[in-house]
């Protein structure tokens, strides 16, 4: 019965509250100017945490079959592969696409 996890209303509200708080934090950290690469790192890190909370507790992957978890992980892995291989090209061009 892995697919029929029933969350309590209190739990769902708790998850939403955590997401609201993290949304506030991600806006609040832009008020204190964090130096260059770290502001991006912090913003992405908070977004990743929020996304994982949604995936685990709203999309119920936490209680779901391991195969669905595997599907999700593989999609992220191939997305990272796509980014990595493309950047190996675009980051090391002498002349980025000239007129575009």
């Amino acid at each position, binding site marked *: 019965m*892995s697919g029929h996890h029933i969350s309590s209303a209190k739990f769902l509200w708790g998850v939403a509250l955590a997401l609201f708080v993290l949304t506030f934090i991600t806006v609040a950290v832009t008020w204190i100017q964090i130096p260059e690469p770290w502001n991006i790192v912090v913003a992405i890190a908070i977004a990743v945490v929020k996304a994982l909370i949604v995936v685990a507790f709203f999309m119920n992957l936490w209680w779901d079959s391991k195969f669905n978890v595997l599907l999700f992980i593989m999609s992220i892995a*191939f*997305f990272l592969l796509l980014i990595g291989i493309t950047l190996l090209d675009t980051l090391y061009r002498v002349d980025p696409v000239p007129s575009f």
Partner: protein
Amino acid sequence: MSQPSATEERLEHLKHYFIDSDQQFEASKMGMWVFLVTEILFFGGLFLAYIVYRAWYPELYLLASEELHTFWGAVNTVVLIGSSLTVAMAIRSAQLNQIKGLIINLWITIGLACVFMVIKYFEYAEKFGKGILPGGYYTYEGIEHEQANIFFSIYYMMTGLHGIHVLVGIGLMLWLVYKAKKKVFHSGYYTPVEITGLYWHLVDIIWIFLFPLLYLID
């Protein structure tokens, strides 16, 4: 097994090629996750375009992002997270056989989705008015950068595709309301509600990334 349960089990939804409701439910959900994988890679291409161009023109992103209103982006984030909550509540209602609660939660979700689209409409309208249009139609003079149109092409592609997904979600949930009113769903069969919920949460996740990447970099 030989004892018939007190409340007679409804099985009209069960296709003959499945052993039981659970197997049918699990198969549908797995199919949806496969679709969500393709969605992640579909949006992934656009996120990649964002990354490649940000690496090429970092200063452009900082300048152009100032045209976006952080406040309205934040409001839309809260609206979408709220709608994710109500979808999760709708699924919970269906699991508990509370069809009235299911319909109410679906209507709230549809309402929040419409709020999101209305805010997006005003954001787009304001930019169109200034001449901030995608690609070759870009005529705005306010950003000191030759390639300012590139940022907004990426902005319109990402938020536009996301907006289309929100519209599709509204359509799906109207269909769910129609089905729920016809008493199709009950605690033994709510697969379409669960599947649409998964879709809606993914749309929420995409926005969770779009908000900091587009609005919060100035």
